[in-house]
């Protein structure tokens, strides 16, 4: 399968703190990749580097065969990179439907009328149809998380980055979400998912990487990676706490 995303020797520091330290990996088209790592390991920074919110101090990012290291965040979203935030960031003063329209029009590069059916379908898929005309600021946490996902989907991404989207949900809500993400993946969207809730993660992803202190410490088939002593040392400490 063709490579969709490739990171080469990516580094980023804040002052003397190396948050991302010489990270390289590839994501194939149609793949679902999971990222594990303790809090503060630099996982979210990695997403910010990929979406263009942060620029790396060193290294290169290629997407769909072209280098995107230097291009702006809005241009990257137009090329097909979308993300959800760990803490939902809806446009609170706009309706749920409008939240989706913005991305569908600007990132999708389509005319407004052409987006209505599409946004409607995304709302139906994510279970938000009954809230379409509610102000996004009035939604519950679960609805906001779904909106994060819906808004990213409305941009018709090739690559969907999910940042701890299952955190703070009940077991039942979590299962629903996993089913939804599996459906999105099955429809052909490539997914990279950062998550602490391991059982949710491995229900979806086919490959796992582990990041600790900005460095990639393990990579491979999920069960093998979780059984790796180095990973257990870093990660099970978190699980126990």
């Amino acid at each position: 399968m063709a490579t969709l995303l490739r990171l080469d020797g990516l580094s980023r520091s804040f002052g003397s703190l190396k948050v991302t330290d010489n990270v390289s990996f590839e994501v194939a088209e149609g793949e679902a990749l999971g990222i594990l790592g303790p809090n503060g390991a630099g996982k979210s920074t990695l997403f910010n580097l990929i979406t263009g919110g942060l620029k790396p101090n060193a290294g290169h990012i290629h997407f769909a065969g072209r280098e995107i290291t230097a291009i702006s965040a809005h241009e990257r979203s137009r090329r097909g990179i979308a993300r959800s935030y760990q803490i939902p960031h809806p446009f609170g003063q706009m309706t749920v439907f409008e939240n989706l329209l913005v991305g569908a029009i600007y990132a999708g590069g389509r005319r407004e009328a052409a987006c209505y059916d599409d946004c409607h379908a995304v709302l139906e898929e994510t279970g938000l149809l009954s809230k379409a005309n509610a102000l996004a600021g009035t939604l519950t946490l679960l609805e906001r998380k779904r909106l994060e996902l819906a808004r990213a989907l409305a941009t018709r991404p090739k690559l969907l980055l999910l940042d701890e989207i299952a955190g703070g949900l009940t077991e039942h809500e979590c299962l629903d979400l996993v089913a939804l993400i599996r459906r999105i993946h099955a429809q052909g969207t490539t997914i990279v998912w950062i998550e602490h809730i391991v059982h949710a993660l491995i229900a979806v992803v086919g490959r796992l990487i582990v990041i600790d202190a900005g460095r990639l410490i393990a990579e491979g088939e999920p069960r093998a990676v979780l059984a790796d002593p180095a990973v257990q040392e870093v990660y099970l400490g978190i699980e126990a706490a």
Partner: protein
Amino acid sequence: MGGLYALFATGLTLIFGVMRLVNIGHGDLIVLAAFLGLAVVEATGIDPFLSLIIVVPVMAALGYGLQRGLFNLTLGRDILPPLLVSFGLSIIIQNLLLEIFSADSRKLQVGALETASIRLADNLAIGVLPLIVFLCAIAVILGLQVVFYRTTLGRAFRATSDDQQTAQLMGIDNRHLYGLAMAIALGVVAIAGIFLGVRTNFDPSIGPARLIYAFEAVIIGGLGSLWGTLAGGVVLGVAQSIGAKLDPGWQLLAGHLAFLAVLLIRPRGLFPRAYD
């Protein structure tokens, strides 16, 4: 005067609403538009209202250029740099106008319209010109409301105003969008400038005082609300008129007192946005 103050304030509220930029040069841009109108009228001999056809696009283009070439470079987490740059812009415009047009007080002439009035009752009449200004202010605000709440561009403005970073992830080029916001704002400034020139005498130094009226109207109305801005302009205008009736020296003081009273009673303005 209420409609005029509302027009002054609309551009300010627009710029602040979309990009959290406080433009100290706003008053001087209004005066710049008035002088631009004067130059067009003197060069071509057309009616000052017709000069809007030229002044509005010129100011809008200037706005886009200023935003892309100057203000975008200053926007960031810190609110101080754009404040300082716009303060500098204010001084540059004042001196440029002084250099080109001298310190003489000027006025845009519209002939008989200036004194025409409509008689409503035996001892009650309203001037045609103030009425035109007021209706124009309503039309401008109505137009902006439609743009903001009914169009794709307006949605992008609101999204960027709410969360600039996330808006970028939705494919919105915020530098271009800010340029457009400033262009629209200076288009409104152009209208305000021409009406200012028609209603009163103006010279290069009156910009900062217009800025204060604009600020007061914005804050009386509640930050970020366009209809609130209109209400703020009216409150300020009516207060000044009542003050002037009591004693000519009371005109400005009455306006400022009304502003202080609103601040004391409704610190967030008359029509604050639901939440920030």
